[in-house]
């Protein structure tokens, strides 16, 4: 049942709104460096790659933590930390392959996305391009499956958009 943030880098135009709302909402400042979601920029491809904690089931950050404060919350499936005891050693940040940990230079602690404490994440609701979606992880693949299927039956031409389907118009139509 757990919902997750799904990222479609292809759609991201790097506006950075997600970073701002996250920083503002979760750290109380507009400083993007404090955002738990980060938009990496790739100069070669002028790609924008949003990065956020994927809440691994067996998280590398957790195994690296020197204070054992990162653990899985099995009720929500999220990887959460006991910030009060974080010593800011950055071991987790360095061990996260996705670079999804954020070092809060003010509190000198490392934080990660907690999906706005389980509420619908702000970054998603503010994303103008739809590069970020918040959906049940079971259905990550669905859209791509559909696309793949469409691609396969391409010669059968694009699906008929409903308004063009003849029939009801002729016999009166539904008002």
């Amino acid at each position, binding site marked *: 049942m757990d919902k997750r943030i*799904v990222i479609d880098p292809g759609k991201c135009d790097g506006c950075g709104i997600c970073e701002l709302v996250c920083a503002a909402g979760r750290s109380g400042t507009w400083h993007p460096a404090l955002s738990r979601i980060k938009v990496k920029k790739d100069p070669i491809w002028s790609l924008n790659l949003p990065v956020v904690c*994927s809440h691994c*089931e*067996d998280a590398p950050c957790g195994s690296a933590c020197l204070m054992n404060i990162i653990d899985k919350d099995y009720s929500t499936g999220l990887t959460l930390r006991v910030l009060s005891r974080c010593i800011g050693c950055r071991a987790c940040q360095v061990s996260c392959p996705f670079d999804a940990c954020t070092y809060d230079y003010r509190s000198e602690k490392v934080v990660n996305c907690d999906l706005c404490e389980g509420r619908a994440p702000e970054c998603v609701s503010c994303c103008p391009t739809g590069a970020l979606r918040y959906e049940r992880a079971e259905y*990550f693949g669905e*859209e791509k*499956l559909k696309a*793949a*299927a469409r691609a396969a039956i391409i010669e059968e031409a694009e699906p008929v958009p409903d308004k063009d389907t003849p029939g009801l118009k002729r016999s009166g139509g539904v008002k």
Partner: protein
Amino acid sequence: MNSKVLFVDYHKCVGCGTCEMICSLVHENACGRSLSRIRVVREDKMGYSVPITCSFCEKPVCLNACPVGAVLRNKETGVITVQKEKCIGCRQCVQACPFGHMSFNFEERHSFKCDLCEGEPQCVQFCWKEAIEYIPLEEALERKRRTQAVKMIEE
């Protein structure tokens, strides 16, 4: 390189979804699409159903996407598999696979994908329309060529 492939002819597929149910049944002892390694996508209003399974890419992105090397590709057979115990469940492979084939098992918390049932895919065994076949790559290509040719002739 005796690589056999799952050859799907969606023109034959009627979308009964038996393959999905059987797949999950033989792999996980449970029936359900969410645990199936093959998925039937139904374009209801076009009257087509397309079974989609792993294309066993030569250069698999899922393999790249895995930060712990839990996705392996067998050099001889080209079969790509996920090692449960290695998987850390970051779901990067799920997001990476361009065909939406990689799926995630939420009960056991790891990714899973088609493993060709050690060489005798059950979806093929149970597909009564022979829409899914397990044939050598060459034959598959040959067929595709032929259908293409037929199309050209008709036009």
